[in-house]
Every structure is written in C-alpha cells, then in structure tokens.
C-alpha cells in the first residue's frame, strides 16, 4: 500500500505545489475558491480520460505522442502562468488596496479566474494521468487487492494535498508589502521550470536538438532523488544535469515574462485607469 501511496504522492506533489501557490496569489480575487475547485475537478476528469487514451496518444507522431502531448500542455501552462503574472503586476496593487468592488475589476477578475481554472485543470491532468494509469495497472494485476490500491491512492493524494495546503498557509503569513513580490517570483520560476520541462520532452522525443547534454551535472551536490532536489524541482524546475535546450528555454521564459511585467507596469494606458 505504501509503495502505491508514494508513487501517487510523487505525482500529486507537483500539482499541489502549483495549486498552493496560485491559491495564495489569487487570495484577494472574489470567488476564486469555486474556480480552483472546478479546475481540480476538471483536471481529475481529464486525467482519467488521458489515462484511458494512453495507447492512442503514445502511438501518435511515430511513438513520441506522449512527449508531444506533455510538451503541448506545458506550453499552454507556461502561457497561462505568464498571463497571470503580467495580469497581477497590472492589478495586484489595486486588489491589495481593496479596489476589487469596481465593476470592471470584477469582469476582469472573472477572466483571470477562468485562466486559473484552465491552468489548474492542466496541472492536475498532466500529473494525474500517470497516477490513474499506475493505479489501473495495479488493480488489474493479481498481486494487490482493489481496496489496498484505493487506500494507497487516497493516502498519496492526501499527503500531496497536505503539502500544497501547508505551502498555501505558509504563504498567507508573508507580510502584505512583500506578498506580491514573493508570489510573482515563485510563479515566474514555476513557469520557467515548466518551459525547461517542455524542452526536456522535446529532446527526449528527438524533436529538437539537446544543444549539449548535459550542459552541466551537479547531481553529486544536490541529487534529483534527495528531498531538496525533489522540492527544488517542483518549485523552481531544478535539474541536476540539464540539456542546453532546457537552460535556453528557462532563461528565455524568465526574460519574456519579466519584460511583460515591466512593460505593463510602465504602460501609460494602465496609469490612466488607476
């Protein structure tokens, strides 16, 4: 049972971290709980669907459909995270000041929350489909009872969710004047990490060249299997031995999002509406 719990936990953990950070970052937008919940529900349904379609997806693009599919989901998630961060840098100050009751704001808040819903659904779908596949395989195997498999799965999900919830509670403790800097930095690094992950899949599928693999290897210092390595991987996309293309995607994503945040903050049209 613990074996299955650990595998499910590993998959749940990364999605839970993303949800924890997003839930904290959007805390001043009215009605966000509903959208986050709906995102998780849609993601779980999507995960089961993807797991059921595994053979079909994997067979696409001459056997690298799985990598292409993962890369596409990650690309969309990166765009949504970028949009979120840029939106927050435009409206964060007003939201913090309690200006959210303005009609226009509510409408824009809805659009932002729809993006959040999609983002969370994608994260849950991506991480959940492997768990669904694993649990299904375990149940159809003779060596484990269905009840044991279900307990293990639930335990794994509960542990993963607990991590996300603790992260969320911890972030709420951050003083308001630093809150937006901390959340936007975390989301920025999360997005860059996902972009690097996308590059990883494209290299694994041989769709793009690795541009030297690995570019460096520090697995002797912080192994990917160590608790610190796992945490850093989920939070900032840490890779002990990244390919050149991963590093390139990471830096490019950082640069584009930071430039976007900087531009909207300086843009005169935004200054007018304030």
């Amino acid at each position, binding site marked *: 049972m613990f074996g299955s719990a650990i595998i499910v936990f590993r998959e749940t953990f990364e999605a839970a971290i993303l949800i924890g950070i997003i839930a904290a970052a959007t805390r001043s937008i009215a009605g966000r709980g509903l959208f986050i919940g709906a995102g998780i529900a849609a993601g779980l349904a999507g995960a089961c669907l993807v797991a059921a379609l595994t053979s079909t997806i994997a067979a696409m693009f001459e*056997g690298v459909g799985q990598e292409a599919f993962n890369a596409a989901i990650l690309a969309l998630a990166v765009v949504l995270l970028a949009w979120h961060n840029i939106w927050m840098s435009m409206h964060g100050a007003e939201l913090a000041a309690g200006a959210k009751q303005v009609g226009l704001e509510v409408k824009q808040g809805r659009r932002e929350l729809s993006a959040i819903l999609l983002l969370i659904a994608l994260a849950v779908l991506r991480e959940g489909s492997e768990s669904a596949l694993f649990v299904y*395989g375990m149940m159809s195997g003779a060596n484990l009872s269905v009840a044991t498999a279900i307990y293990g799965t639930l335990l794994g999900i509960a542990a993963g969710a607990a991590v996300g919830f603790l992260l969320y509670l911890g972030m709420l403790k951050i003083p308001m004047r630093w809150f937006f800097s901390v959340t936007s930095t975390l989301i920025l690094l999360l997005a860059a990490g996902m972009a690097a992950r996308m590059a990883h899949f494209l290299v694994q599928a041989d769709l793009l060249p690795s541009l030297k693999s690995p570019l460096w290897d520090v697995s002797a210092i912080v192994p990917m299997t160590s608790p610190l390595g796992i945490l850093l991987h989920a939070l900032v996309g840490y890779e002990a031995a990244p390919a050149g293309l991963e590093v390139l995607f990471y830096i490019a994503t950082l640069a584009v999002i930071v430039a976007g945040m900087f531009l909207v903050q300086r843009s005169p049209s935004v200054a007018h509406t304030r």
Partner: protein
Amino acid sequence: MRHVLIIALFAALSGLAHAADPEFALTIRDHRFEPSELRVPANKKVKIVIENQDATAEEFDSHALNREKVIPPKAKAPLFIGPLKPGRYPFVGEFNEKTAKGVIIAE
C-alpha cells in the same frame, strides 16, 4: 532568441532527415526488462525502442539518464538518450520497481 530557435528547429529537422541514430531494443515481459543489461556506444545519441508485451502499462524511469516514459500495454515506443559518457546508467520500471530493473552501459 528567435534566431537561435529557428536555427535549432532547422538543425532538428535536418537531424530527422538523416535519422541514423544507432537503434537498440528493450523488451518488457512479466514486469522484467530483457535484456537487463544493454550495451550502447558512448558519446552518441542512441535510440532505444522499448516494447511492452505485458497487459499493463509500465513507466521506464531512470534518474541517471534523466528519462521517464510510459509504455502502454502491448505497445512499442522509441526513447532517445545521450550522448552518454562511458559508464553505468541504471533504470527501473516505476510501476513494478521490485522486478523491473536494468542498466544501460555506455562504452
């Protein structure tokens, strides 16, 4: 940045056109890998074609190789690795870690 990406894309496409990476086969049967020791050339990109003959999905997982790939039941899928430095790179089938173990030896 855009130029780098375009160049990278063209390099990838020309790579696909040549597509002469050495190819190796790995089979999953009864939740075990065959062969459990696979020798591949070092310092070269290598294509491993993994065939899963079992009725359940398996995930090829290797931290040393930095690779993770689900192989659906009764299916075949390619996995590209390397160029590798000479050495031993252990891997497991994550869904059946007790029996599904192996190592890729680059030399």
